[in-house]
C-alpha cells in the first residue's frame, strides 16, 4: 500500500508538470500535505518532491507544510543511530530525505519572517515602535526549531566521522551543503552565515576535489551576503592558491568566480592582478567572461585611474581577441572624461604600440588616444608628432577596415594638432590606395579629410576637430553585457548593495564616435547626447549631418549600431549645453591644445 502511495505521488507530480490545470489542487492540498506525516519514509520522500513542485506555483496553499517539514527534519537530524534502521545510509540517517526537506524549505522565506506575517496575519503596533504579530508564536517556535536543526547539522560536521568511507562523508556533506544553501537563502542569521563560511573555508583545503569544488561554489553565493562578506574575504589567499594550482579547470573557474564575487576596495588590486595572471593560461571559452569581469572590477574599484588604464591595456595585450567593444570604448570614455589620466594614457599607449606584435584593439585604442591627446606627449622628442604618426602608420596596413577608418580620423586630427605633419599626412591621404580604396568608408574618409585639410582654414579646422567633450553618465554597458552572457544571476553580486556612488562618477554607456562628423556638437546632438535642438543652420546640417553619420556607419565601425547604445541614446538625454551648438557660427573656438 505504501509503495502504491509513493508511486502515486510521483505520478501525480509528472502529470502536474505535463498539464498543471488538470490537477484539482484546491481539494487535494490538505491530503498531499498530510502525506508528510506518513510513517513510511519512502512515502514522505515522494511526497516532499511533489509538494516542492506544487508549492512553486501556489506557495500560499502549501504553507502548512513548513512546520511539518521542520518537525520531520529535526526528528531525522537529531535521531539516534538505532532509529530509522532501513533509511540509515553509512551511519547517516535518511540523507536524501533530509536534503529534500531542506530543498522544500528553500521555497519559502524564513518562518517568523516579519514581512510574510504582515501579509497574512493581523499585527499591531507596540508602544516601543515594534510590531507584534498574531499567530507569531507558532512561527517563532517553528523558526526556533529550524535554527536548532541547522545548528545541529553544522555541529555534526565538526565532529569526527563515524566511518572512514567516502560514502559516509558524502552523505553527511550532502546534507551540510543543502543546509548551507538554506542558510544563504534565508540570509538573516549572521552567526549561521559566518559558521557556514568557516566550514566552507575548511573544505577549501580538503583532500577531495569534489568538496573543494562545492565549497568554492557555495562561497560564491555567500560572498554576496552582507553578513558573511568579511568572513569570505579572509580566505582570499587559499582561493588564489586554488586558482593557480588546481588541476581541474572547472575548479579553477569556480575560484575565479569567487574572486570576482569577493572583490572589494581593499583587495581589488590583488584580485585583478591574479585574474590577469589566470587569464594568460585560461581556456579560450571562458576568456571573454574573465575579460569582462576584470574590466568591471578595474573600473569599479579604481582609486587611481592610471592603474585602470594599465589594467585595460594589459587585458588587450594578453587577450586582445576577447576584449569586446564595450571594454575598450569604456577605457576611452574614462580617459576622455578624466583630465588627470590623459597624459599618462597617451604615454602608455605610445609605449604599448611600440611592441612588435601589437593587437588590433590596441591600435584602435592607441589611435584614438593619440588623436585626442597626442599633443600631451609631443614635447618629448621620443614621442614627437612625426614619430607618433609613423608609429601608427606602420600598423596601418595590418589592420582591418574598421581600424583603418579610425586611423584616418586620427590622421586628420594630427593635421590639426601638429601642422608640421600636414604634408606627410596629406601625402598618405592622397595616395591612390586611399582615394580609390575599394572600401567605400575608407575612400569617403580619405577624400573628405584630404579636402578638409586643404580647404579649411586653421581656425575652422581647429573647431571641427576640437577635443571630444566628456561623455555623460550612463549605466555600464559592460555590466549589461556580462549579465547577458551569464544570465540574470551573474553580475548581481556586484550590483546590489555594494555599489559605491563615489566611484561611479563616470558610467557611460555612450560609445565614442571615432569619426567626427562636420561639427562635434551637432553630431553629438544627432546621437542624442544633448537634448537642445540645434539652432539656426543646424536643422539643415542636422539633416545633412544625419546623412553623414549614416554614410560613415561602416559595418563594424560604428558603435552606435549596437543595441545598448541605441536605447541609451534615446532614453537619457543630457541637458543642453548652450555654447556648443553656437560654436560653429559664433566665435572660432580655440584650437585643441
Amino acid at each position: 500500500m505504501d509503495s502504491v502511495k509513493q508511486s502515486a505521488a510521483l505520478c501525480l507530480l509528472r502529470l502536474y508538470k505535463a498539464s498543471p490545470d488538470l490537477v484539482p489542487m484546491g481539494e487535494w492540498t490538505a491530503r498531499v500535505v498530510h502525506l508528510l506525516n506518513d510513517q513510511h519514509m519512502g512515502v514522505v520522500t515522494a511526497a516532499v518532491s511533489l509538494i516542492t513542485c506544487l508549492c512553486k506555483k501556489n506557495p500560499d496553499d502549501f504553507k502548512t507544510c513548513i512546520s511539518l517539514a521542520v518537525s520531520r527534519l529535526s526528528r531525522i537530524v537529531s535521531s539516534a543511530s538505532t532509529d530509522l534502521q532501513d533509511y540509515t545510509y553509512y551511519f547517516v540517517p535518511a540523507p536524501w530525505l533530509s536534503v529534500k526537506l531542506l530543498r522544500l524549505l528553500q521555497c519559502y522565506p524564513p518562518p517568523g519572517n516579519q514581512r510574510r506575517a504582515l501579509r497574512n496575519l493581523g499585527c499591531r503596533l507596540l508602544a516601543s515602535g515594534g510590531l507584534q504579530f498574531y499567530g507569531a508564536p507558532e512561527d517563532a517556535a517553528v523558526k526556533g526549531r529550524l535554527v536548532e536543526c541547522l545548528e545541529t547539522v553544522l555541529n555534526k560536521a565538526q565532529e569526527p566521522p563515524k566511518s572512514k568511507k567516502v560514502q559516509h562523508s558524502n552523505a553527511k556533506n550532502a546534507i551540510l551543503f543543502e543546509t548551507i544553501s538554506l542558510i544563504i537563502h534565508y540570509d538573516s542569521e549572521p552567526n549561521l552565515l559566518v559558521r557556514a563560511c568557516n566550514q566552507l573555508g575548511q573544505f577549501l583545503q580538503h583532500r577531495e576535489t569534489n568538496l573543494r569544488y562545492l565549497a568554492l561554489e557555495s562561497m560564491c553565493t555567500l560572498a554576496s551576503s552582507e553578513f558573511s562578506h568579511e568572513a569570505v574575504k579572509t580566505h582570499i589567499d587559499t582561493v588564489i592558491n586554488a586558482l593557480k594550482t588546481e588541476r581541474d579547470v572547472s575548479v579553477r573557474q569556480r575560484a575565479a568566480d569567487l574572486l570576482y564575487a569577493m572583490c572589494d576596495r581593499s583587495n581589488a588590486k590583488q584580485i585583478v592582478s591574479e585574474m590577469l595572471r589566470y587569464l594568460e593560461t585560461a581556456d579560450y571559452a571562458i576568456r571573454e567572461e574573465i575579460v569582462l569581469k576584470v574590466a568591471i572590477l578595474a573600473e569599479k574599484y579604481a582609486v587611481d585611474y592610471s592603474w585602470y588604464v594599465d589594467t585595460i591595456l594589459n587585458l588587450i595585450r594578453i587577450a586582445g581577441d576577447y576584449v569586446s567593444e564595450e571594454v575598450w570604448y569604456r577605457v576611452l570614455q574614462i580617459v576622455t572624461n578624466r583630465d588627470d589620466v590623459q597624459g599618462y594614457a597617451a604615454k602608455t599607449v605610445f609605449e604599448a604600440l611600440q611592441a612588435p606584435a601589437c593587437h588590433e584593439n590596441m591600435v584602435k585604442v592607441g589611435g584614438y588616444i593619440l588623436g585626442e591627446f597626442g599633443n600631451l606627449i609631443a614635447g618629448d622628442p621620443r614621442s614627437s608628432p612625426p614619430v607618433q604618426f609613423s608609429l601608427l602608420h606602420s600598423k596601418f596596413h595590418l589592420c582591418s577596415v574598421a581600424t583603418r577608418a579610425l586611423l584616418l580620423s586620427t590622421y586628420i586630427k594630427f593635421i590639426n594638432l601638429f601642422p608640421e605633419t600636414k604634408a606627410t599626412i596629406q601625402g598618405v591621404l592622397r595616395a591612390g590606395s586611399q582615394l580609390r580604396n575599394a572600401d567605400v568608408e575608407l575612400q569617403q574618409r580619405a577624400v573628405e579629410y584630404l579636402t578638409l585639410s586643404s580647404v579649411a582654414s586653421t581656425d575652422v579646422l581647429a573647431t571641427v576637430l576640437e577635443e571630444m567633450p566628456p561623455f555623460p553618465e550612463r549605466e555600464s554597458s559592460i555590466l549589461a553585457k556580462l549579465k547577458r552572457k551569464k544570465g540574470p544571476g551573474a553580475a548581481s553580486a556586484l550590483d546590489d548593495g555594494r555599489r559605491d556612488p563615489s566611484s561611479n562618477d563616470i558610467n557611460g554607456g555612450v560609445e565614442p564616435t571615432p569619426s567626427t562628423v562636420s561639427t562635434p556638437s551637432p553630431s553629438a546632438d544627432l546621437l542624442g547626447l544633448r537634448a537642445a535642438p540645434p539652432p539656426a543652420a543646424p536643422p539643415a546640417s542636422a539633416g545633412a549631418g544625419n546623412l553623414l553619420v549614416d554614410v560613415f556607419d561602416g559595418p563594424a565601425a560604428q558603435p552606435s549600431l549596437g543595441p545598448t547604445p541605441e536605447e541609451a541614446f534615446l532614453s537619457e538625454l543630457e541637458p543642453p549645453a548652450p555654447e556648443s551648438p553656437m560654436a560653429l557660427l559664433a566665435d572660432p573656438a580655440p584650437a585643441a591644445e
Partner: protein
Amino acid sequence: MGPKTSLPARDPCTARKWFSLAQQKEFLEGECNILFLSSLIRFILIQNRAGKTRLAKWYMQFDDDEKQKLIEEVHAVVTVRDAKHTNFVEFRNFKIIYRRYAGLYFCICVDVNDNNLAYLEAIHNFVEVLNEYFHNVCELDLVFNFYKVYTVVDEMFLAGEIRETSQTKVLKQLLMLQSLE
C-alpha cells in the same frame, strides 16, 4: 508531426507548428526552466568505456536522434575525465553527476541547482542494490538481465525524482516481484 501533446495546454505556444528539432528542444528546455524548477533528473545512463549503453532511462521527452546525440556527447565528456577531476560536469545547461565502477560509467543528468553529493550517493546506493540483487554484479549481468535492471531503476527513481532509498525495502520488493515470475 504535430505539436507535442505533453506541453501544457494553457500555453499558446503549443498550438504553434514546430519547424525544427532545435526549436522544439529549445522550447522544451525553456519549459523545463519554468516548470521543472524543482530538482529533476533528466536521464540516467550506464555506459561502458567503449561507449556502449547498458541502460538509458529518460525522464524527459527527447527524439531518438536527440537521444543518440546526447548519449554520444555524454560519453565524450565523461570518458576523458580521470581521478583529478570532480565527479560533476557542466553539460549544456544541465550538469552530469557520474561515477565510474570498473568499466562502467553511471551518469545522472540533473539541473544545475541540484545537490551534487546527494545524487552521487544515489548512484552508489543504486549500485549497491544492484550488487545485492545480482550477487556481485558485473557488466554481463546488466547485459543479460537488462529488464531486471530497469525494474530496479524504477523502484528507486520515478518521474525524475528519487523514489525509494532504503536498500532493504527495495530488495524486498524486487524479490517479491521475482517470485511472481
